[in-house]
Each structure stands twice: as structure tokens, then as C-alpha cells.
């Protein structure tokens, strides 16, 4: 495939992203008010905007609500085991470095059960784009506490409030070695789409955290309706590109920093393997 199919302009009702969607799998499973669909369409728009032929992409997801994205995108796509999207994707990337590999998954999948894989892929600067839909909760299993759930928040497994502190994901990604680190919310669709586009074109490990509401399993127990969450995204966020990721804790009382935290150059895992391990003929 050298040229991507053109949008079906003449066909009434066709969506401009239809060529990237498995329309035969719609309707999707995501709830009303969920933020995943917005991140998903931003991702598709960003893929399209790269101009790269679709067959040069692969999307890998783990398990969870966000993990279902791989099932709706019309690319070579993989819905793997819980937490293991990144090492599965690493295998794809290292076996065929020409591919553009996207990991699309949730906070529970990527940072609790899959946390170890995340830091090691970042350390190696594995050339892939990791998009984390962070809804602060385990949505699919019915609202249990996550590694990203704010302190004191109520979940089904923290009925008295969360005693633990959440991860600061941009700081974690930066400290582990990521080349590109950004955070947006689903209210900042254009910024988000641009960020994903940048990340896709960036050589190295790119990480984008996207804050997204889960009105059913997080909002309901924490007195936050869908629109309340979006209002927080609008009023209690500060866009500050180049901000210190150490200040990126999610605290809506103090304000949550959005933007591109890190954009740096480092040798990638596949390039360094070529340069270090392939010897010329003895």
C-alpha cells in the first residue's frame, strides 16, 4: 500500500475517519460520558495527519476499557494480556523497526500491572508512542482504586477513601527516560491531536497522558458529573509547555499542568542495537 484511501466525500453520512475504523464493530462498548472515544478519534486524526501509509502502523492495547481501542481501529491491531501491551509492542518494534508502533491503553493497565514494562521501555527509549487514557480508576471491572486514583477518593475497594498517593505519570516517564512527554485532557482536543501527531513523528519513546472522565465508575462515587469533570479540565488546568514534570501532580485544587513537558533527543533501542551489536565481518 503506497497511498491511503481517500475519505468518501461523496457518500452522504460517511465520517472522515471511517477509513480507519472497523465500522462493522460499531457500536462500541464505551459508556455515555466516557472520554476514551475522544482520545481514540484524536489518535486516528493524528495518524491520518502524518501522511504515513496505514499499513506501516500497528496498534497494541492491553486489557480494560481503553484496551478495546485496538478492536475498533482498522490497522493491524492487537488486544493482548493485561499490562503486557508494551512488551508485546516492543517485540513488534524490534523485529520490524520500520513499523510505527502505538500503544493505546489505560492507566490501570499501563501503570499498575504493566508498570515495570513502562519504565523499561522508556529506559531503552523504545521507539513507540504510548497513549494513556487516565480516568483515575479501573473502569471495566467496576470502579476499583488505581495507581492513579487521587488520595482520599472513593472507589469500590477504597470505600473509606484512598489511603495511598497516586503516581505523577509525566514525572515517572521523564525519570525513566522518555524522549517525549505530554499531558492533555479530552477537552483540549486540538492540542491533544497535535501532541499525538508530534509523538508519532518523534523518534524514541513518546508518552502522552490524557485525562478523561469515567462518570460511571469514578464520577458517580466522587460527586463529579461528566460536565463537572470537563469544567475542572477547563478551569483548573494550566497550559505550560516545558514545565518541570516534578510539578505535574494531579491536584485540581492547586491546578493541573498540561502541555509538553519533555521533548528531547536520545538514541533509540533499535538504532543503538544496530550500532552496538551488529559487527562487520571478522
Amino acid at each position, binding site marked *: 500500500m503506497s497511498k491511503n484511501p481517500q475519505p468518501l466525500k461523496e457518500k452522504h453520512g460517511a465520517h472522515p475517519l471511517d477509513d480507519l475504523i472497523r465500522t462493522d464493530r460499531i457500536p462500541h462498548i464505551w459508556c455515555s460520558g466516557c472520554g476514551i472515544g475522544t482520545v481514540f478519534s484524536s489518535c486516528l486524526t493524528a495518524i491520518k495527519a502524518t501522511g504515513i501509509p496505514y499499513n506501516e502502523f500497528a496498534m497494541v492495547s492491553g486489557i480494560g476499557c481503553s484496551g478495546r481501542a485496538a478492536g475498533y481501529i482498522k490497522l493491524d491491531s492487537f*488486544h*493482548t494480556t493485561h499490562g503486557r501491551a508494551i512488551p508485546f509492542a*516492543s*517485540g513488534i518494534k524490534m523485529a520490524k523497526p520500520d*513499523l510505527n508502533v502505538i500503544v493505546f491503553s489505560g492507566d490501570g493497565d499501563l501503570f499498575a500491572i504493566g508498570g515495570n514494562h513502562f519504565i523499561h521501555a522508556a529506559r531503552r527509549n523504545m521507539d513507540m508512542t504510548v497513549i494513556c487514557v487516565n480516568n483515575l480508576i479501573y473502569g471495566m471491572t467496576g470502579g476499583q482504586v488505581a495507581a492513579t486514583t487521587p488520595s482520599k477518593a472513593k472507589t469500590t475497594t477504597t470505600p473509606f477513601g484512598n489511603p495511598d498517593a497516586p503516581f505523577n505519570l509525566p514525572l515517572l516517564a521523564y525519570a525513566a527516560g522518555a524522549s517525549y512527554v505530554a499531558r492533555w485532557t479530552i477537552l483540549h482536543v486540538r492540542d491533544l491531536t497535535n501532541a499525538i501527531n508530534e509523538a508519532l513523528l518523534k523518534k524514541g519513546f513518546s508518552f502522552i497522558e490524557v485525562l478523561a472522565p469515567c462518570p460511571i465508575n469514578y464520577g458517580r462515587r466522587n460527586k463529579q458529573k461528566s460536565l463537572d469533570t470537563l469544567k475542572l479540565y477547563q478551569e483548573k488546568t494550566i497550559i505550560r509547555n516545558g514545565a518541570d514534570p516534578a510539578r505535574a501532580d494531579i491536584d485540581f485544587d492547586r491546578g493541573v499542568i498540561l502541555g509538553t513537558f519533555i521533548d528531547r533527543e536520545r538514541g533509540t533501542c533499535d538504532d543503538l542495537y544496530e550500532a552496538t551489536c551488529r559487527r562487520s565481518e571478522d
Partner: protein
Amino acid sequence: MKPAVRTGNHYITGDVACAEGAIAAGCRFFGAYPITPATEVAEHMAERLPDVGGTFIQMEDEIAAMASILGASWTGTKTMTATSGPGFSLMMENIGLGACTETPCVIVNVQRTGPSTGLPTQTGQGDMMQARWGSHGDYELIAIAPSSPQDCFYHTILAFNLSEKYRVPVLVMADEIVGHMSEKVVIPDAKEIALVSRPKPTGRKDRFRLYEPGPNGVAPMPAIGEGYNVHVTGLTHDERGYPVMTPEAQEQMMDRLKGKIRNNLDDIIHTEGYMMDDADIVIVSYGISARTGLTAVDEARKLGYKAGLFRLITVWPFPERMIHDIAARVKGLITVEINLGQVHYEVERCAHGQADTYLVGAAGGAIIHPDKVVSLIKEVFQP
């Protein structure tokens, strides 16, 4: 690039022979995590793969190693990992993903003694049932047990060929002794090694169905980037590869996963007989313990017993019919294995009461001495 097949006579360990067999079979991606006594497979692959256009990666744990070889396999690459007991346990969930998504790959388990950390540097064959049933749910896979470094070379090639042909994870169930012992290994000319590659789809891409079986029950497998837009999931799926959450879809999927193995047993099951023609006492064994059995047969013959050895090269799927038929014409079946009874119970099941069945087992840590087998023969049989 250097030649992939190191034709010639070598004096190497079983672990190194596994690695050489893999490279000769066309393995070009290896993801692993160090563990005694399988580490040397990884070390040898790390050195050899870059020179033959392949890639080695040491992952952060065995879960990641197993995930990486599944991902890499979908690029159209032959892939392998190697581990031992604790790592094998960690790989189980993704071995199930490999079985469910019909992803070819080879897993070498150089067995040590368990449970838990057990005896890390000493032999055992206690992972045989885990090899069959370790991942949750029903599934079929293939497990092969080498008895020598030479076997390690050929059986790893066999493992790749079966894995590619049937799109299934194949386990090479070696053990510490076979892995660490050095013996003569003859590597033939590359042209004498028959290689199999996964079936590729033909025909229109828009009509392609990911799991539509071919003539032998195995669906052709495209690679990432070929434009088939595959969707691969560990959820129960239909022939398109799409999730379908119904008992009917589950039954259809399981029919395919089981059928492609169960309907091709003659091709998949490899066994070897020694002094079997007139034998009425048959030792059933595999891996390193088959060598115990071999000496035991010779010793028992010297004492006038009509002993024979039936060696399982393929342990899973189990040669049920063969064991059943042997049981019909002998007095007794003796299973020799370095565990407290795993394959033994399969032999008992398949003998179906036609012959007496005995176990010569051990808790692990050492090879079983042939005297133990001969003593049992003397105790329960007349010459």
C-alpha cells in the same frame, strides 16, 4: 552476515545446541530473561543473532519475554524464548494468548527442580503437567522432550517446524542435565535441513478472514504491514478475529484450536522404540530419563527379561492410542521420570487397565539410576 548453519561436528552443551538449532530453523528474534539453567541459550543467541540478521533482547522479566516473542511473531519472524521453572510459571498467561491467537513461537524450558525456587542448578522433570495445562482454560499445544544435546539441535528445529505448520506455541521441555552436558553434536549442511514456514494468505484482502482454516485446519497467517488489517485478540473470537461473547463462538473457536492438533496427531507425534519388538515389559520415558530407561532395558535383558523402551519425543499431545495399543500386548508399563508422577498418570489412563503400570520417579535434583528401574522389574516380574 555469517552463515546461519554451522555445519560440522561440535562438542557443545544442550543449551548451545538449542540456540544453534533455533538459528538453523530460521529463528530471528529471541526475547528472554536470565534464569539457571537456561541462561546459556540466551547468551548464545545474544552473540549469534546479530550476525545472522536477527535481534536479541533481554526483557525485564519472563512475562515481557513471552509477550515480546508473540508480538515479534506477528511481523512474520520466527521467534523463541528460553527459561526454567519460575520463568515458565510467569510465561503461562501469554502462552495462553499465543495458543488462543494461534501465534507460532517456541519456548525452551530447561527444567530444574521445583516447587518455587527449588534446586535451581539441579535437574528435574516436574513441569510436564504445567506444560500441558499451565495456562488457564482448555487449549492444545505441542511439547517435545530432547534427551541429548544432539536432540536439542534437531528437536528445536522440529519445534519450529511444527509451530509454523500448526500456528501454535511449541515447548521444548529439556532439563538441566541435557542443557548443561556437553556431547558431540553433528550439524548437517543447511540444504539437508527441511524447514517449514507458516502458511501465507492468498486471494483478496478485503475478503480475508484471519482464522478461516485451510485444508489441514490451520488458517493462513499474514504479517503486520502486509495490508490485511488483522485484529488479534485473546477474547473469544470468530473467524474474522473479532470478539464474540457467546458460548457458540467459544465452541467454534475451541473446535478449531483443538482440531488442528487432534486431527493431525500422526504428523505431530514422534516417538522412538528400543527393543520393542518382543518386549513384554515396557519402560515409557522422555528427556534425560529416557537414557535411564535405555540402560535399564539393557540390564534387564541381561537378566533375561524381555524389556523395551518406548521413548516419547512428543509428550503433548500425548500418544494415547500408541500407549493403549502397547498396553494391550504387554505385562507392565514402567514410567521413568524425575517427578513424583505426572506422565505416569497419563500412561495409566491410556493403558486403561490392560497392563499394570508402575512409576519410577524421584523428587528431583538428580538423574534416576537405572538400578532403581531394574530393581522394580526384579521385584514385580518373572524373567
